[in-house]
């Protein structure tokens, strides 16, 4: 029995649950699914607590569990909670949508990716992990990560063609 466990665990949750939740929210696109994801990952981490020790290793482990669960099959089904807004901002006649509108288009398009595609984009463009780091995190090859990033971006453009014209603004 490790008497320090309870205090350590509490401290970790107090310090890090906010950041973990934000990532989980980006991964799932749904508040409740995000809470479940963090909760589940914390539970699994608690069970491994003693073998992890180092705080950096602990956070790494929680995140790893989160990413894996998000791309894994059973959770994909629980994604029914994810509601596509179904709302696309009006396109001005001259095609000059505001950047704020484009962000909304982006959100809607993101909701239509598969969990795996979305997870990889969040890791690359929000967590700023390198392709190599993502590959290690998800236990897949670097080539696979690279091609999936490319295909996910292409998919976004296909879902919302106005995103491919983004270059023209600014």
């Amino acid at each position, binding site marked *: 029995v490790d008497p320090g466990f309870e205090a350590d665990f509490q401290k970790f949750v107090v310090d890090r649950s906010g950041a973990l939740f934000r990532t989980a929210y980006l991964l799932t696109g749904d508040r409740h699914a995000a809470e479940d*994801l963090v909760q589940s990952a914390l539970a699994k981490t*608690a*069970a491994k607590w003693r073998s992890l020790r180092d705080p950096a290793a602990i956070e790494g482990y929680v995140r790893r569990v989160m990413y894996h669960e998000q791309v894994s099959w059973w959770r994909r*089904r629980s994604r029914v909670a994810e509601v596509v807004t179904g709302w696309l901002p009006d396109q001005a006649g001259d095609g000059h949508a505001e*950047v704020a509108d484009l962000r909304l288009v982006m959100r809607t398009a993101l909701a239509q990716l*598969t969990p*795996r595609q979305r997870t990889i984009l969040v890791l690359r463009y929000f967590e700023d992990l390198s392709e190599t780091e993502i590959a290690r995190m998800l236990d*897949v090859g670097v080539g696979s990560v690279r*091609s999936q990033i490319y295909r996910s971006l292409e998919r976004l453009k296909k879902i919302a063609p106005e995103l491919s014209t983004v270059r023209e603004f600014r």
Partner: protein
Amino acid sequence: MNIENLLRETLSEMAREERPPPPGRFLQVSGLRSHRRGLALAAAAAVAVMAVGSTLVVGGLSSRVTVSKDLTGQGSVEVLPEPGKRLRERITIKEGLRLSDTLAQLAKQTGKPLREFQQAARSGKDLGLPSYAKGKLEGYAFPATYEITPKMGPADILTAMVDRFTLTADKDDFQKKAKALGHTPHEIMTIASIVQAESGSKQDMGKVARVIYNRLDGDPVRKLEMDSTLMYALNKYGVEASNVDLKSSSPYNTYLHEGLPPGPITNPGDDAIQAALNPAKGDWVWFVTTDTKRGITKFAATEAEFFQLKAEYERNKASGG
């Protein structure tokens, strides 16, 4: 500004907007009153506990359902607490199918063209295969019941099957256990696939696995001499190889070549993987299915015992068994 920067901005905007719940929300369920209790509760709170023992528990934190495992032991069924809110189709892939048969099953059950599944299966690296699979899907298309939404194409379905494998492997510390057994993860999957093909029942699996290890790593080292690997090479089905079959130069002909075939010959289920990771204790180096009708397999440690079993098999065959 390009799409990547727009994506960056959108994601950080989303992250800023969504306020995290208070940390206490995450401490409640862990119920850390005592260490032991804390861990037990924490484990119970894990949203999915994959097939452990005879039941599996799946559900969210608020609602949990327990489903007893499919009685036939053929694949495991997962159930979500809430009934389908969108159009879904449920397909079941049995344990121990070869990839070619798995793809045919998928095509049949989804109504999508077989060719598309075959094509998707070939682009192994896009399916999220672990690196040790060397880009080949055979062995890693995990048999289970899957729910398919209309949005999912052949590649998504195959990816889901690989994901299920990865999840199972993660749960089991698969790579670590493989190392402890002195084999690579790919070799363990190859062993599991042979265990799956050679075992008449779940009870036999641990012993069949032991026979494989005893032949591979024993002193003296013996060729595996398993019909299942040869039949795979010849794309045939059956239990008894002919003399012509035995001459095949395929690396899957374990009568000719020492050691394991190059890769898995079926897609094994959890029981067979468990057996490969935890072989029964014993010094058997042979097994004979003495009664094919009733699926009775017996194990032998000496040549004399082996010949006795063979005689028993012949007797049963002669009496119409």
